[in-house]
């Protein structure tokens, strides 16, 4: 209490310093005056009376010092003093200050900009209250750790677990045919089906109206209600509150708008922000698997499950509970649940799942950016070191008149802190620029009109990181110079502004800095070049299919409430009529176009190869699946290596056939011919499918993924609703858009065409421009690192020259040739560059392995990359050393000898 009161009084003392000082002065004067009078009364002569009074009072200055120390807070006062002094001294060298601040801003900005990426993809909590206890439940199989659940499984998990305050389910419906008026042609909007308790369990209060009631999820097809996403409400309804109670049409069915989600809740996913939320009970209206009954079939697994952990429950308890439940499923429903487990994951575990590539990019970029910051810091450290050297005499004087070394170090650190904080401020601006740059790539990353956004922003967490980085860099680049410069030899320091004790110890630090710079920027360049080459190589390698003269579009007859027979008829007539149009060479229908929107576009098939010795721990295999029609291989120009492709004779009633890719064939029949072999679907007792052909393996998901197994099956034998159409034209594919529209109109006037574009455009975005963003980012970091390293090396050599000006003058006076001088000055720089290159090469190999393991899996060492990067680095760094060396060789001896 007493201490606290005193603290506040002292804090106040900081502000009222001036008044208090006056008061003390007056009190002292009065004290001495009174004592003098007293002495006079005792009979002392006036002068002696005053002298005695002052003697008795004691040392005034020492007392004042005590008084001041007790009055304010000396730590803070010192700091403020340091601050003022630093600002003044930085002001004296504005050029240097600006350079240092810009260098740090670049480093901090790039780092925090890329951190915004990692933040959005890994760290940002769910936009709900108490996001920490929201966990994700996943199914596990022998080849997937992140499987979904079926509706029946969801009900069991929801009702039989005790660890949670509610379990919620959702499934993304990427395409919903939406029309505000009953007769308008539907437009495509993004939706999400959720369980009735979704908003309640997440703790999200609607901004307008209400969210779903639990009972709205009980009866299939009864409650046609919809909650709007906040953005969608703003865009589509101009934030009209009268939207409540209105009827809108979703996939041709009337829904009543009951609420609007709040602005603070864009959705639970990183990129995808749903426009519409519908209850799960309306599943029949939306794109669920038509082969299965969503509400009954335990193997119709389309639901992602999340749950809110009860207070006091641990993840482990929940995990055990769910594992037991999964075992029960296995026992009770061996046919559909065999070999399936379940797991509970935190948000962090979900965000850093091993099968996701986005966050890995984020992490790699952040590591690279940190290296840029490191180079920037070493650069600044070098500059501060040179600056401290120039201040040797000032520092020596301060030490000589009794300043403590610690106090001096604090002063110097305050200086670098100011620099770093200014740099951090600039860094926030640069970081903002980086996030804006990311935003500008929106159209390339998302080629559709899906409600998706790049969520990288400079939020509080990123700004905090920015601040932390500033402090870190203040220490990183300020401590070494501060320590070294306060270790001055006083005697010499006072005599001359430029001292160097004999021996090389002093320079060791600076040399290490240059080596660190060269090696780090070599590593950065290697990384960016490897990334560039990696993508380039995948492009040169080719994709294995044709990309030109193709027009693509997609259909989903479920948007028009087609039944299975109508759908079948539509997909039968559409290619038939199109083939008759002029300019059409061939037509194909496929479940997923090559390099499809994402890997989930492809289907999945569970099978048992006949006559194959199954490993003990599994009874089925699974593979990616693409449902295609008989025009697929011809239209995409994917060669059939062996056997045959699909034919018109493979009808719905004919024996089931499949074409597998080469990778698949080699995988299961390495020593024999796969053609003529059979696989059985789902289990060893399942339907038999004959493999009739082997197609060449091509790129399916993205250009840099390793080759995978793929099975093609026939659309007529396994009908599907959502299909992509590819039209091969003899001329410009864009000219086919109108004929295509006309044909579609003859079949159904209102049928929407989704994502219509030439395949070449699609490919450019997906395979060239998208990865180009990554390469651009990596190479700009590499170049930033290189520029900084050049500046650093140039600075060090220049500094060495200025330090040895007199020596060089003497050498020239004694007859040294200019080439000798160049060799002398450059020699040191070259040794540094060589050392740095050696270390950088080692680091480069490390990064290459990192990139290979995370992204490309190219394997081996990319010799070309090093053959390009290393010599160019050597060239520019040698140049950076040569320029000042050349200047040194022109030093006029008369001038140099007078130089101080």
């Amino acid at each position, binding site marked *: 209490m*007493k201490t606290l009161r005193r603290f506040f*009084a*002292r804090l106040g003392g900081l502000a009222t310093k001036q008044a208090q000082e006056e008061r003390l002065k007056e009190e002292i004067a*009065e*004290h001495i005056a*009174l004592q003098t009078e007293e002495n006079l009364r005792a009979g002392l002569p006036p002068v002696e009376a005053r002298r005695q009074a002052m*003697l008795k009072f*004691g040392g005034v200055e020492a*007392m004042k010092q*005590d008084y001041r120390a007790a009055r304010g807070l000396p730590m803070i006062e010192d700091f403020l003093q340091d601050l003022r002094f630093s600002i003044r001294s930085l002001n004296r060298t504005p050029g240097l200050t600006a350079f240092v601040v810009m260098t740090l801003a670049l480093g901090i900005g790039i780092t925090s900009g890329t951190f915004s990426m990692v933040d959005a993809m890994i760290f940002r909590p769910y936009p709900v209250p108490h996001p920490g206890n929201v966990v994700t439940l996943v199914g596990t199989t022998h080849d997937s750790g992140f499987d979904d659940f079926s509706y029946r499984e969801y009900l069991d998990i929801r009702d039989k677990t005790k660890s949670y305050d509610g379990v919620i389910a959702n499934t993304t419906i990427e395409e919903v045919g939406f029309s505000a008026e009953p007769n308008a042609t539907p437009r495509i909007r993004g939706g999400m089906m959720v369980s009735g308790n979704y908003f309640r369990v997440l703790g999200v209060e609607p901004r307008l109206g209400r969210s779903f009631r639990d009972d709205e999820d009980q009866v299939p097809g009864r409650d046609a209600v919809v909650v709007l996403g906040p953005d969608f409400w703003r865009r589509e309804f101009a934030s009209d509150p009268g939207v409540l109670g209105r009827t809108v049409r979703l996939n041709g069915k009337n829904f009543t708008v009951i609420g609007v989600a709040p602005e603070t809740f864009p959705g639970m996913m990183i990129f995808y922000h749903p426009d519409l939320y519908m209850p799960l009970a309306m599943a029949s209206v939306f794109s669920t698997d038509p082969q299965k009954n969503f509400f009954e079939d335990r193997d119709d697994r389309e639901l992602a499950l999340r749950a809110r952990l009860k207070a006091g429950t641990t993840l482990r308890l929940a995990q055990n509970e769910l594992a037991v439940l999964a075992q029960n499923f296995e026992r009770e429903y061996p046919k559909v649940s065999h070999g399936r487990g379940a797991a509970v994951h935190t948000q962090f575990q979900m965000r850093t799942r091993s099968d996701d590539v986005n966050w890995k990019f984020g992490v790699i970029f952040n590591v690279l950016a940190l290296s840029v910051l490191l180079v920037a810091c070493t650069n600044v450290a070098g500059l501060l070191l040179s600056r401290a050297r120039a201040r040797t005499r000032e520092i020596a004087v301060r030490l000589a008149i009794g300043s403590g070394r610690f106090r001096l170090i604090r002063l110097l650190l305050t200086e670098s802190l100011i620099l770093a904080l200014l740099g951090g401020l600039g860094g926030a601006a640069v970081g903002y620029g980086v996030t804006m740059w990311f935003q500008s790539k929106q159209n390339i990353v998302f080629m559709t009109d899906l409600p998706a956004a790049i969520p990288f922003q400079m939020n509080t967490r990123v700004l905090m990181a920015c601040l932390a980085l500033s402090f870190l860099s203040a220490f990183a680049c300020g401590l070494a110079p501060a320590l070294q410069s306060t270790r001055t030899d006083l005697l010499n320091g006072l005599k001359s502004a430029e001292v160097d004790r004999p021996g090389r110890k002093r320079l060791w630090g600076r040399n290490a800095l240059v080596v660190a710079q060269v090696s780090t920027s070599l590593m950065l360049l290697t990384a960016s070049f490897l990334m560039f080459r990696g993508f380039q190589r995948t492009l040169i390698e080719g994709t294995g299919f044709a990309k030109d003269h193709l027009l693509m579009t997609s259909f989903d007859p479920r948007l028009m409430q087609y039944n299975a027979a109508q759908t079948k008829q539509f997909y039968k007539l559409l290619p038939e009529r199109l083939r008759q149009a002029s300019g059409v060479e061939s037509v194909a229908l496929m479940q997923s176009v090559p390099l499809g929107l994402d890997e989930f576009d492809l289907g999945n098939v569970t099978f048992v190869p006949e006559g194959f010795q199954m490993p003990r721990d599994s009874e089925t295999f699974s593979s990616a699946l693409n449902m295609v029609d008989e025009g697929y291989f011809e239209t995409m120009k994917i060669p059939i290596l062996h056997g045959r492709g699909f034919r018109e004779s493979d009808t719905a009633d004919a024996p089931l056939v499949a074409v597998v890719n080469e990778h698949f064939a080699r995988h299961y029949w390495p020593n024999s011919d796969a053609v003529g072999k059979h696989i059985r679907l789902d289990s060893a007792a399942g339907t038999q499918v004959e493999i009739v052909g082997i197609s060449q393996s091509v790129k399916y998901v993205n250009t840099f993924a390793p080759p995978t197994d793929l099975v093609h099956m026939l659309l007529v034998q396994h009908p599907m609703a959502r299909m992509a159409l590819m039209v091969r034209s003899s001329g410009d594919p864009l000219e086919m858009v109108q004929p295509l529209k006309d044909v579609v109109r003859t079949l159904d006037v209102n049928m929407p065409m989704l994502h219509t574009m030439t395949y070449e455009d699609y490919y450019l975005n997906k395979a060239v421009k998208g990865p180009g963003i990554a390469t651009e980012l990596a190479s700009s970091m590499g170049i930033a690192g290189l520029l900084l390293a050049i500046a650093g090396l140039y600075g060090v050599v220049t500094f060495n020259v200025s330090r040895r000006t007199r020596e060089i003058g003497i050498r020239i006076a004694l007859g040294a040739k200019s080439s000798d001088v160049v060799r002398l000055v450059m020699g040191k720089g070259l040794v540094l560059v060589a050392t740095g290159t050696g270390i950088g090469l080692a680091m480069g190999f490390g990064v290459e392995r990192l990139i290979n393991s995370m992204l490309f899996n190219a394997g081996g060492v990319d010799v070309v990359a090093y053959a390009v990067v290393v010599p160019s680095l050597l060239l520019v760094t040698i140049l950076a050393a040569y320029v000042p060396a050349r200047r040194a060789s022109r030093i006029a001896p008369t001038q140099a000898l007078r130089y101080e």
Partner: protein
Amino acid sequence: MLSVGNQNEGETLILMKQKAEVLQGTLALMVLKTLDVLGPLHGYGIARRIEQISGDLLAVNQGTLYPVLLKLEQEGAIASEWGASENNRRARFYRLTREGRKQLEAETKDWEQTQAIIGRFFEVKAEDLS
């Protein structure tokens, strides 16, 4: 050799510091008691009074009183305001606050207890313990 000397110097410094702290504590108590007995006083008056009673404790370095006064004021034990001194000049007068009175009482009690205990120890003779 040099380092031994430095070490001694350091020890002396620490001792001096400790002694000063004890002195400050004693001085603070004296200030409180003085103000309690005599009512509001200016700095010189307090110094004189302490000098009269304690002899040479404040005979030199009367200035050391002022940091103590400041500390007491910051703690709220005393308050100060400008007033007129005997010769009608402006002087800073210090007075005891209620807080200070409480503090003085507590310290007095402490002191008496300590004194009693120590006193008893000094009175003890060898045979009393056997």
